[in-house]
């Protein structure tokens, strides 16, 4: 862990993150003191059994949810110091999102969906970059279609293109292949990998699928709200083996 954090820039991190839901008898500690850093230019996966807090961790470090205690940072910015307006603008300008489903706004075209954060900011964006993104994700021929006219795989590709289009500092993906068949899923994971390798993006992905996780450079394992393990240069077999030991 130590060498990862000191050797490279950290795109996002948490310090002793605690997230508690409910009170008293019904209290749930989704995150129980998580300190983790996500290296810039790297593809990190967060894995764990259901109820491990992996999605909660993602939401909190992405600025979608607030911590009960501890701190979360995007770059050098402490998210707890931002009000809703500033947080929204931070997400718009510096963060990209790919959700498992329902990523897109159904009333506008794929092209507008891709540039949505830019449109909201009133910026034109880097046209060359956007063209490149569209080319990589291979949806150039579906740009004027509405999301309802696209297949599940195509919709996710548009979502990825959107996440990349504004050139964010970090992209958070929450089970991006969860709703896709294996072929479409592989496509998406390939795009994400290329984004890191060819375009220098930073990606943090939550997944339960060992195959998907194997695309990452590093996997952080969570259980019961705490980090319990790490794996570098993962393969699907090693991940599967590690996951099977979670029952013990």
């Amino acid at each position: 862990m130590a060498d990862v954090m000191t050797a490279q820039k950290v795109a996002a991190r948490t310090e002793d993150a605690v997230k508690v839901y409910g009170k008293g008898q019904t209290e749930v500690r989704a995150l129980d003191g998580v300190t983790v850093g996500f290296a810039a230019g790297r593809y990190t996966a967060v894995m764990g059994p259901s109820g491990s807090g992996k999605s909660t961790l993602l939401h909190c470090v992405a600025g979608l949810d607030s911590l009960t205690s501890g701190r979360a940072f995007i770059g050098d910015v402490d998210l707890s110091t931002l009000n809703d307006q500033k947080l929204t603008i931070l997400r718009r300008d510096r963060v990209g999102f790919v959700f498992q489903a329902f990523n897109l706004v159904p009333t506008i075209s794929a092209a507008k969906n891709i540039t949505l954060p830019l449109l909201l900011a009133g910026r034109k964006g880097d046209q060359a970059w956007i063209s490149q993104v569209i080319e990589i994700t291979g949806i150039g021929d579906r740009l004027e279609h509405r999301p309802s006219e696209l297949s599940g795989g195509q919709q996710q590709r548009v979502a990825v293109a959107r996440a990349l289009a504004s050139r964010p500092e970090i992209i958070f993906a929450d089970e991006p292949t969860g709703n896709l068949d294996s072929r479409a899923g592989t496509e998406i994971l390939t795009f994400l990998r290329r984004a890191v390798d060819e375009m220098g993006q930073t990606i943090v992905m939550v997944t339960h699928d060992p195959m998907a996780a194997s695309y990452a450079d590093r996997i952080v394992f969570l259980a019961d709200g705490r980090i319990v393990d790490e794996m570098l240069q993962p393969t699907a077999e090693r991940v599967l083996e590690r996951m099977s030991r979670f029952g013990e």
Partner: protein
Amino acid sequence: MFKIALQSLLARKLRLVTTALAVILGVAFTAGTLVLTDTMSNIFDNLSASVYQGTDALVRAKAVFNGPNQMGEQRPNIDGSLVPALSHVPGVAAAAGSAFGYARLIGKDGKPIGNPANGAPTLGGNWSTVQALNPFHLVAGHAPQAPDEVVIDKQSARLGHLAVGDTTTVIANGPPLRVRIVGLAGFGTADNLAGASVVLFTTPVAQRLVAEPGKFSTIGFVADRGVSQQQLVSNLKRALPPGTEALTGAAAIKEQQDQFQKALSIFSKFFLIFAIVALVVGAYIILNTFAITVAQRTRENGLLRALGASRRQVLGSVLVEALAVGVIAAVVGLAAGVAVAAGLKALLSVFGLSLPAGSLVLNARTVVASLVIGIGVTLIAAISPARKAAKVPPVAAMQEATVGSSGYGSKQRLIVGLSILALGVAALFTGLFGHVGSAFLIVGVGVLLVFLGVSVLGRTIALPLSRAIGAPLPRVKGVTGTLARENTMRNPKRTAASASALMIGVGLIAFISIFASSAKASINATIDRSFAGDFVINSGAGSTGGGVDPALAQRLNALPQVAAATGERFGSMLILGQPYMIAAVDPRTAGQIFNVSPVQGSIGALGADGIAVYKDDATKHHLKLGDPVSVVFRDTGPKTLRVALIYGDNQAAPTANPGSKTSYFLGTPGYDANFAAPHFDSQVFVKKAPGVPAAAALAAVKKLSAQYAVGATVQDQAAYKAEQTKPINQILALIYTLLALAIVIALLGIGNTLALSIFERTRELGVMRAVGMTRRQLRGTIRWESVIIALQGTFLGLVVGVFFGWALVRAQKSQGITVFSVPYLTLILLIVLAGLAGVVAAILPSRRAAKLNVLRAIVTE
């Protein structure tokens, strides 16, 4: 199923409230109207009873004919010698005559009290010396004894800032009179008789000033102890001269009450129309809301069906929900209705019609009506969505619900919509242009059908309409505008439904505005064309028979600055068997002032037996110049007049309603010979002498008027026109206020729809917020969506309203509305206000949407 329905209802309490609100307002207005009507009915019943409280019998002249426009029976005065003569009839304990007629009291500031042309009458009368027969009682001072002493009612004293001991002026028979106030009177517990201002003199003075010397309007009798009213009347009947009649006090009270009831029913019908409008709009809202909620619960209903609920049970569950909403709406609406009644009472007094104090009356009928209407409207509106819910197949439980429209059956919709529209237009035209009974009802049904047809068709054109209206938004407001516009286009049926509710209110406002504008323009055009005078002296007495001293017109004619002046007197009579309110003008001078386009004869020929007839009426009754016309006067009975003038412009003739088409008028000699004194000129028209500057003429006229017609206003032509159109403006203001209710309900509907659609789009909104849409931007998209919907409804409303306005103006051509005038400024204002209303409707929903927790929205199931 019953329990499930109720539980799901309670889970969404806010939605329940907003849905119910629309019907609550409609029921409140209905209940309010009924309560107000019952209250007023009660008040007037009590008032009538108070007038004849101590009267056991009444003797009066027999009615000669029934007057026009709900005036009631017309009867002449009765001879005063009957009082002593009938006092000797067995059973009579006391008798006294009552002399009442027009009089106008001038306040301390020189302004006349009361508005007899448009409101309660202003009366003068005698203070009865028999206490039991006097409906008034002293609250200050003493009864009048000297000829110049008067007692006035407490309300008038307050309005005119007069007190016991003050001297003021009274307009009655002859020149203005200076009088001394020696007492104030109350009427029962009220400060006056239903808003009527009263000046009470000694009996001989009253007879001279407001009735005829030696005569009375009625004679009242008090019975001896032990003698019933019936007994007294039969005794009196044996002693009555021909042409007179006697009735019991109870019968007199009933007569009075019936007259009030007639006036009241017109009044309550007026308000009930608005209640119906509010209910129709409310029904639209219910239908729309239930349609949305049913669509949102497609999966739920599919699940229920999959688990074994029958179609009937699902239908029933929606209806149970509607029933719950209806019951709440009815009960709350009833309670609110009482508040509405109080509000309407206050509203009326603002617009000039003040009512005496009295507590509000809540009848069983009102309670039952409110419940039936509230529940009925809600259930009926919910039937269609309920049936759709029942049609949901069980497999829907497994399917992902999509937020979108179904464009099915658009050809069918076109046909249905056009059919309903055609039916409505047919009914409308039949009612307006055909000569059928209950035309009003047919027109009402036609209006309803037209609205219904347009709202059905509205769904077909909703998509292109939203696109067109929202076209400038993407350019002006960027992605916020694009999203707003796209949202209105994604479910055109729902957009159209929300807009339709607003269409009704806007359509009616546009229609009324056009009609009023046309009426005003017609009046102005008529006055321009037919009125050659320069000034009008207005007594404010309208066509009630009151006015100013006729000597004024005479003196004006003698002025060097005046070329011609004529008074205008009013009275009712039967002409060829029909009752009319006719005007009489001075034949020596009126021809220079009224351009009636004489065809045969002249105004100057209107002698004591002359009558002027419009050329079409002359043709209809086969009348030539000089032919006899049989008429009946109240005071002189059946007479034969001769046609002295056949005229060509029936809108130019002297009339009680400028602009309307008038068939007959008289000359003052004929009037004076046949109507008993006192005679009053309601208005005096003056034409200045050529070469005299207007300012100088006006000054001379004003000086004389101040002397002979204290408190009357002197108007130039522009002011005269404004005066004629004032009543229209007053009614218009009242109608606008009432229609505002329909608009408010429609806005609630738009807000409701927005809130529901936001709920549907929660996940989508969450994604937008996640990728960086600020709260402000989100509020913006919802706000502009609301504005587009509001403008869509406005557009449809304007189209329908202009059509209605045109139709009614065409239909009323025969009544004198000859100019079709569109008040463009008003309509543009309406569009702007609708846009603002859209903004307002969006405030609450957009703020709630903006407050959505982003994370919870994204992971919403």
